[in-house]
C-alpha cells in the first residue's frame, strides 16, 4: 500500500498539533484550518489523523492499491483527468492518479485512511517556525497506508450541510491588555505563524515590549507599529507585545481562509457568546456529514 507524490505543490503534513510540550517552548502547530481538517477526518471516520495540507497546487499523487480518502476545501479535484468531487469520502482505485488544485489561497485538506507519517513529540505536524515534524512534501516522496476495507462505512460519505462560516468576520474576546482593535482591517499577509493586518489608521499609544508571557494561536498582538498580528498555529509559545484580544475557537479556522488585500472585521464578543459559538460549530460539524448507512431507510 504505497502512495507516491507525483507533484507536491506546497504541501505539509498536519494533524491536531503538539499540546504537551508548551512548557518546553514547543509551539502547538497543527492544521491551519481546523474546521476543514475536522471534516476531512470525519469523512473517512478518523480523528486526529495526519493529513496533507495543500497550500498551493498543483498537487498530484498515485497509489499502487485502492485507498479511502477525502478532500475538503475549495479545489478542483480530478482522477486520471476526469473531474471528481470535493467534500466526500471516496475510494481511489489502484494505479489511479488524483490531482488537487486549490482555487483560492486557502489550504485544502486531503485525508487518507491509515496514512502513516512519522510523529515528532507526539504529533506529525510540520511546524514552519520551529521546523519540527515531517518536512514539506517533495516530488517523488512516498508514504505507506493501511489496506482498504471495502466494507468501511465511511465510503461514500459526503458533506450534506457545510457549517456556516463568514470568513471576513473574526470574533474575539478582548484583553488582557486594553487596546481597542474592534473594526475594519486589511489583510496584509498570511502565514501559519500569523496573519498581519494593516490600516491607514494604526493603533496609537501602543505599549513598548512587555516581559515575555504565554501567547496562543488567535492572540491579537499589537507591536509598536500599531498594526496587529493575529497569531497562527505555528506561533511561538511566548511573546513580548501587548495582546488586545484572542480570536474565539469557533473562528480560528477563518485565519487560514483569508486572502491578501481583503478587508476583515474584528468583532468583540463576551465569553458567553463565545461559548454559544463554540457549541453551535461543534453541532454543525457533528451534523455536517451524511453516511450511506444514514440513507438506507429512505
Amino acid at each position, binding site marked *: 500500500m504505497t502512495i507516491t507524490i507525483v507533484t507536491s505543490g506546497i504541501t505539509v503534513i498536519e494533524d491536531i498539533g503538539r499540546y504537551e*510540550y*508548551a*512548557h*518546553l*517552548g*514547543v*509551539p502547538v502547530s497543527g492544521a491551519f484550518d481546523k474546521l476543514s481538517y475536522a471534516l476531512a477526518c470525519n469523512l473517512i471516520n478518523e480523528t486526529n489523523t495526519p493529513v496533507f495540507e495543500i497550500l498551493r497546487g498543483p498537487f498530484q499523487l498515485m497509489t499502487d492499491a485502492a485507498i479511502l480518502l477525502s478532500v475538503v476545501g475549495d479545489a478542483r479535484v480530478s482522477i486520471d483527468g476526469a473531474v471528481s468531487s470535493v467534500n466526500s469520502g471516496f475510494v481511489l482505485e489502484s494505479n489511479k492518479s488524483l490531482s488537487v488544485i486549490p482555487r483560492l489561497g486557502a489550504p485544502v485538506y486531503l485525508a487518507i485512511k491509515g496514512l502513516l507519517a512519522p510523529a*515528532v*513529540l*507526539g504529533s506529525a505536524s510540520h511546524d514552519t*517556525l*520551529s*521546523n*519540527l515534524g515531517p518536512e514539506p512534501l517533495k516530488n517523488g516522496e512516498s508514504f505507506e497506508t493501511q489496506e482498504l476495507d471495502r466494507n468501511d462505512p465511511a465510503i461514500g460519505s459526503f458533506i450534506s450541510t457545510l457549517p456556516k462560516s463568514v470568513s471576513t468576520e473574526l470574533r474575539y*474576546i478582548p*484583553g*488582557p491588555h486594553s487596546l481597542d482593535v474592534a473594526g475594519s482591517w486589511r489583510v496584509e499577509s498570511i502565514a501559519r505563524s500569523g496573519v498581519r493586518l494593516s490600516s491607514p489608521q494604526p493603533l496609537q499609544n501602543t505599549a513598548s515590549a512587555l*516581559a*515575555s*508571557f*504565554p501567547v*496562543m494561536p*488567535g*492572540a491579537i498582538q499589537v507591536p509598536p507599529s500599531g498594526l496587529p498580528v493575529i497569531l497562527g498555529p505555528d506561533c*511561538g*509559545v*511566548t511573546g513580548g507585545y501587548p*495582546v488586545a*484580544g*484572542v480570536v*474565539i*475557537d469557533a473562528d480560528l479556522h477563518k485565519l487560514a481562509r483569508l486572502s491578501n488585500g481583503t478587508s476583515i472585521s474584528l468583532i468583540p464578543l463576551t*465569553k*458567553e457568546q*463565545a*461559548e454559544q459559538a*463554540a457549541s453551535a460549530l461543534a453541532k454543525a460539524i457533528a451534523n455536517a456529514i451524511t453516511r450511506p448507512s444514514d440513507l438506507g431507510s429512505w
Partner: protein
Amino acid sequence: MKAKLSQYGEHSVLLEEFEGFPFVWVESLEKHFPTAKVKVGLESLVLTFSDHSDHISLVEALLPVVENTAVIRNSKLVEIPTEYSGEDLELVAKTLGLSVAQVIAEHSQTLWTVKLIGFAPGFPYLVPSAGTTVLSSIGRLAIPRTKVPAGSIGIAAGMSCVYPSEMPGGWHLIGQTTIRLFDASNSSKPTLLAIGDQVKFVELSK
C-alpha cells in the same frame, strides 16, 4: 497567593503582579486547578481551562490557598562548558567599561536560574539565582541578527540565554557551547534544561 487576574481569551486567565519567580507557584496551582494547564511567563502565569465556566471567579476563590513551593522538586544544576568568543564580547565589555576578562568572570561566576523556556523550543531565559548582574545594563541589539548559530550564548536585559538551534535573535552574543539543549527525537525528555534548574557557565581553558 495574591495576583492581578485578567481574562485571556475564552479559556484562560492571566496572573500578574505576584511575588517571587512565576515557576515557584506552578506546583500548587496545578494541585488546586487540576483541570487547567499552567503556563509560565517571565513575570506572569497563565491558567488555561478546557471549558467555558467563570474562570476568574474560580481562580479568585482558590488563590488565597495557593502556596509558593519555593523549591522546585527534581531541579538540577547543569554546567555548560563555554568558549567565551562571542561576536559581541568586546562591544559588551566596552559598553560596560570593563575588560573582556571581567565580563567573562561576571558571567561565569553568576549562578543562573532557568526562569522560563519560551520563544522557541528549548530556549531558556536565565536570570541570576540571587540579586542582579552588572551585565544588566546591556539591552537587546537594535537590529536583530537573522541567523544566530545553535549553541550561541547571549545576554540581554539582565538575563542570559543559550540558542538551542539556529534562529533569528537579538541578544548580545558573548560565548558558544557545543552542548545540545534540544532534541526533538527524545519525546520523554526533549530539553536538557527544565524551568527551575540552576545553570553555571564553565569557561573552557584555551
